[in-house]
């Protein structure tokens, strides 16, 4: 009997291994990278101090990113960041990313080559699962877990079952990774992959760019998943080439691996998707949205703040104007994405269209700052969660979509398909 991607990566990280593992096994593993951000690190650091250790297990393998409430939005967040900064200095952590160098963690870490295929990564952030796009096993945890992983380089895991989702068929114009994952979550529900690893496969995702794959793996957690993985291929290799400076291992699922469920999806029938408030599973094809006026359009986040996303938005906004009733906010995921977009002329396009462009930050995605909604307001957003009050007032609404729909909606003032322009 063969093994899934998740099982194989975990098996090779066992403290007392390597050995075979099966779903349900509770195991102790070595981790390759530990992550925390400006809102989760302070709690983890408190627990870390209780351990009474003077150093982290390997300074090069602990990454701290100040991305949520930065550039600091208020005094409380400034103090949290100060605490994290001090910790990073005292312990000599080379991978501490502050304003001017930082980006949204899940865009930044792969871009900087800090995550490699085959790695086992844990992070105090639920969207740590994004790195599964590189063929790594990456999952979010609580603060106590992360404190211990920072100190010891080890953690414990329950080996997850795997749900394999196979996509076939040619994608329609304007359909990308975001639409595939929203469609999938709409089909299986927000707990459709609870406890499980999701394995994304098939000819359609084989042709998907790395940026599209990051978007899909990012939202595995929105189906309750513990991780979302892609096997390593030419596209992965081309991406990590020149970024990852250490040896790594590529994994493929065995043909006879045992899955909890295998789902086949004909991707050629998928239209651009929109998830209605207040759950990511409330998806509809954009043609069935009806008349939904919007006050704000947000393009960015760890889901869709990469260069490809900005190129799509720019292709739609070029030579057009943002609707007078809409505030369009565009947030490049990292400084590098920002610079690339600037050099390509995308930023100019956005500003000429009447959009605001911000320095990288999580900002409005979690209702932090940089675009909070008032009561009764509606936003279309390329982010990953549309829970009640996620972007501001409890009586505001967030509609999730990909960058094409978000940009077209910004122009038309209502949720729209780019072909309506």
């Amino acid at each position, binding site marked *: 009997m063969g093994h899934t991607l998740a099982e194989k990566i975990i098996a090779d990280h066992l403290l007392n291994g390597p050995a075979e593992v099966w779903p349900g096994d509770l195991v102790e593993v070595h981790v390759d990278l530990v992550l925390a951000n400006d809102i989760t690190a302070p709690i983890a650091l408190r627990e870390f101090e209780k351990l009474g250790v003077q150093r982290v297990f390997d300074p090069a393998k602990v990454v701290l990113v100040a991305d949520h409430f930065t550039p600091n939005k208020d005094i409380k967040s400034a103090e949290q960041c100060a605490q994290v900064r001090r910790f990073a200095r005292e312990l000599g952590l080379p991978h501490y990313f502050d304003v001017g160098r930082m980006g949204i963690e899940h865009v930044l870490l792969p871009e900087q080559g800090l995550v490699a295929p085959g790695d086992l990564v844990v992070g105090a952030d639920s969207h740590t699962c994004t790195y599964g796009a590189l063929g790594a096993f990456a999952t979010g945890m*609580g603060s*106590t877990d992360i404190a211990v992983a920072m100190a*010891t380089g080890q953690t414990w895991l329950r080996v997850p079952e795997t749900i394999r989702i196979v996509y076939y068929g040619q994608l329609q114009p304007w359909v990308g990774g975001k639409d595939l994952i929203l469609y999938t979550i709409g089909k299986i529900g927000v*707990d459709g992959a609870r406890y499980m690893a999701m394995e994304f496969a098939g000819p359609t995702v084989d042709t998907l760019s790395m940026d599209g794959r990051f978007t899909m793996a990012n939202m595995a957690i929105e189906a309750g998943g*513990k991780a979302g993985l892609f096997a390593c291929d030419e596209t992965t290799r081309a991406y990590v080439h020149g970024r990852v400076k250490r040896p790594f291992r590529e994994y493929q699922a065995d043909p006879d691996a045992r899955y909890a469920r295998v789902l086949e999806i004909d991707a050629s029938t998928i239209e651009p998707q929109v998830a209605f408030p207040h759950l990511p599973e409330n998806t509809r094809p954009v043609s069935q949205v009806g008349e939904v006026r919007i006050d704000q359009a947000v393009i960015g986040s760890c889901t869709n703040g990469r260069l490809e996303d900005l190129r799509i938005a720019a292709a739609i906004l070029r030579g057009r104007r943002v609707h007078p009733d809409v505030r369009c906010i565009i947030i490049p995921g990292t400084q590098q994405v920002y610079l690339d977009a600037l050099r390509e002329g995308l930023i100019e396009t956005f500003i000429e269209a009447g959009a605001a462009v911000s320095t990288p930050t999580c900002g409005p995605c979690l209702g932090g700052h940089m675009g909070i909604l008032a009561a009764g307001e509606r936003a279309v957003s390329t982010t990953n969660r549309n829970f009640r009050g996620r972007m501001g007032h409890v009586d505001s609404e967030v509609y999730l979509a990909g960058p094409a729909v978000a940009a077209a909606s910004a122009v038309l003032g209502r949720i729209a398909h780019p072909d309506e322009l």
Partner: protein
Amino acid sequence: MMLSGTVWKYGDNVDTDVIIPARYLNLSTPEELAKHCMEDIDPTFAGAVQAGDIIVAGDNFGCGSSREHAPLAIKGAGVSCVVARSFARIFYRNAINIGLPILECPQAVDETESGDRLSVDLRTGTITNERTGRTYHTSPLPEFIMGIVQSGGLIPYTIKRLQGRNR
């Protein structure tokens, strides 16, 4: 590690908001949290629970937010163990990490009622219902998870291990 106590039984999808409502998240000690444990699903619980009692519940126990306050409140209330059909993932981790033993055993859940007395042998994964006399076998907690639980949680467990390494 043998446990035994009176059963408090609940249904499916007991979420972290009913285990410890968000309005009490400004509290942080297990004792303070315990006073409000299960308040929104069973207001009698916090006043009547006895040390050693056991919570038995359906599927997806502890779903919702990642707050570590939820297992802390249950542990603070004196509950010795939670037996459920299944647990939400982050609750499962958090419970182990703060030293609250939890077991998945659908059959035992289905055949147990509030007020029954259960005895649980964590080492063997055996659950016995003293009223019905029936015994159930579930996977015991692995050695190192037992180690975490017996030490009182992941932090004390890790401290012990780190000291052992330096010796």
